[in-house]
């Protein structure tokens, strides 16, 4: 009985993940080799979908655009996330204040992403708050057009939505840093930036890695933010897949999906190669 208990307890999780994750991923791979015409998908084994995906300049350009978004968003969320966590962990005094401020940062994560994206419209639009204020102050003569429905808006929305995913793991690792290490550094005469660079950042590496994995995978696979915030101006791999789905070109979408999955897994493997996070979990 005792030996069976863990298996019984883990079984529901295993069954659900097998049915709704493993099996669907197998289906994706299988269908990516299927053939299709304008009305249906035809079971067979062809490589044309992959040839189309990898042979098309559009794919490469789209990947480049998505990777550019990922790099920019990763850099911004990392810097912002690090200093927000730093403030929470080392500047704020008192457990309760720390917890309350941390909650303030996490609560938006539990509200609707789509509403949070839409909420930038009255702010950034042609007649939005920002343009109105800048016009009144005489800083600009004409409303800035690039604020909404642009790459700028996409990056802004990403940072708005995903910085939380960086703050949480980094804050978590910072809270576990033995304070005596920092005191020792102070006693040894280390200055603020030396402590940050040689004590805090090295000890935060696992948190930084986990946050990076979140941001990279979220941005690489996104289609909804690009669609809503760029107004059809920018491309992303996720959007490309979602367009193929709406055209019912499922095998093509699957081939694209398999390639995206491979790219994302390679990026995660690269991050894990640099930082071992196993012991953090």
């Amino acid at each position, binding site marked *: 009985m005792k030996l069976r*208990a*863990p*298996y*019984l*307890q*883990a079984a*529901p*999780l*295993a069954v*659900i*993940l097998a*049915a*709704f*994750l493993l*099996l*669907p991923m197998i*289906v994706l791979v299988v269908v990516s080799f299927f053939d299709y015409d304008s009305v249906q998908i035809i079971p067979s084994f062809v490589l044309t979908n992959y040839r189309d995906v990898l042979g098309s300049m559009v794919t490469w350009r789209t990947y480049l655009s998505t990777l550019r978004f990922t790099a920019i968003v990763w850099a911004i969320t990392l810097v*912002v996330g690090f*200093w*927000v966590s730093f*403030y929470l962990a*080392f*500047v704020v005094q008192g457990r309760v204040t720390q917890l309350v401020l941390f909650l*303030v*940062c996490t*609560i*938006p994560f*539990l*509200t*609707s992403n*789509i*509403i949070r994206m*839409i*909420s*930038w*419209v*009255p*702010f950034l*639009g042609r007649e939005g*708050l920002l343009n*109105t204020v800048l016009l009144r102050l005489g800083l600009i003569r004409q409303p800035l057009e690039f604020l909404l429905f642009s790459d700028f808006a996409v990056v802004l929305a990403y940072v708005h939505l995903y910085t939380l995913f960086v703050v949480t793991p980094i804050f978590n690792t910072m809270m576990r840093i033995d*304070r005596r290490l*920092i*005191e020792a550094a*102070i006693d040894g005469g280390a*200055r*603020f930036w030396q*402590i940050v660079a040689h004590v805090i950042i090295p000890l935060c590496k696992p948190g930084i890695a986990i946050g990076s994995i*979140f941001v990279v995978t979220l941005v*690489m*696979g996104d289609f*909804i933010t690009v669609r809503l915030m760029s107004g059809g101006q920018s491309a992303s791999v*996720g959007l490309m*897949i979602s367009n193929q*789905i709406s055209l019912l070109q499922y095998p093509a*979408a699957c081939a694209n*999906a398999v390639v995206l*999955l491979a790219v*994302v897994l390679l990026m995660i493997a690269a991050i894990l190669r640099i930082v071992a996070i196993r012991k953090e*979990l």
Partner: protein
Amino acid sequence: MRRPPVTLTLIGRTVLTAFFCLFVLFLYGPTLTIIILSFQGPNGGLTFPMNGVSLHWFARLFEPQAVGDFAGALTRSLLLGSMVMATTVVISIAAGLAFRRRFIGSGALFTLTVASLIIPSILVSLGIGLLFNLAGLDPTWYTSAFGAQLTWTLPFGLLIMFAVFNRFNRAWEEAALDLGASPWQRFRHVVLPIIAPSVVGVALFGFTLSYDEFARTLLTAGSDNTLPLEIFGMTTNVTTPVLYALGTVTTGLSFLVIAAALAAIALIRHAATRSE
């Protein structure tokens, strides 16, 4: 008096405090804007200035023609959220208990759970949609979308349980065992009361993540929309503040659920310290 952990000048402290305040403003500012704008007068537009103050757009929300099927979508989302919440809580606790010991396949199951979190949502959505298609089943919000959302909520639930059981003192359970408690009694009267605040946390994640889920639901919900799908549909064809009214209502609902969960956690903690 504890020494401040990091030597920071007053200027450094001020800069970081200002930075943090700006960040919070950045997080909440836009949402506040649309909450204010949802109270636009009947002739008001999508941006400032306010053209009077009214509840006009909230009333419009409940008229059948203004938005698609708001009441139906809301009902479905609340039901689905509750289903996902209950399932996530039960499965996460059970799996959390299981992972306290090594068992054959525990490593693989852990990897699969983490993979569930990081595989792009659109792939999960597409995969489940195709799976149902090939199996000849109609995707619905209570079957395929339910499963799709669980692949998103379960990893969060399990990670929270991991954090709890890592700090869990086994001595309590052993004491109960010595006193002759059955496995169920040990769970019900010893483990559950200790992990209760985190269980509320898992429930909160389960409900809100489901209630707001979009990408994994998109290709799995079938013909009846959940609320986020309905909202997304509106973004392309609704150009009145009714959209903001909808945003205010759903965000308000989320805040209500979050507040209830935090209150429950505080209450449980309070009761626990009093009984000691």
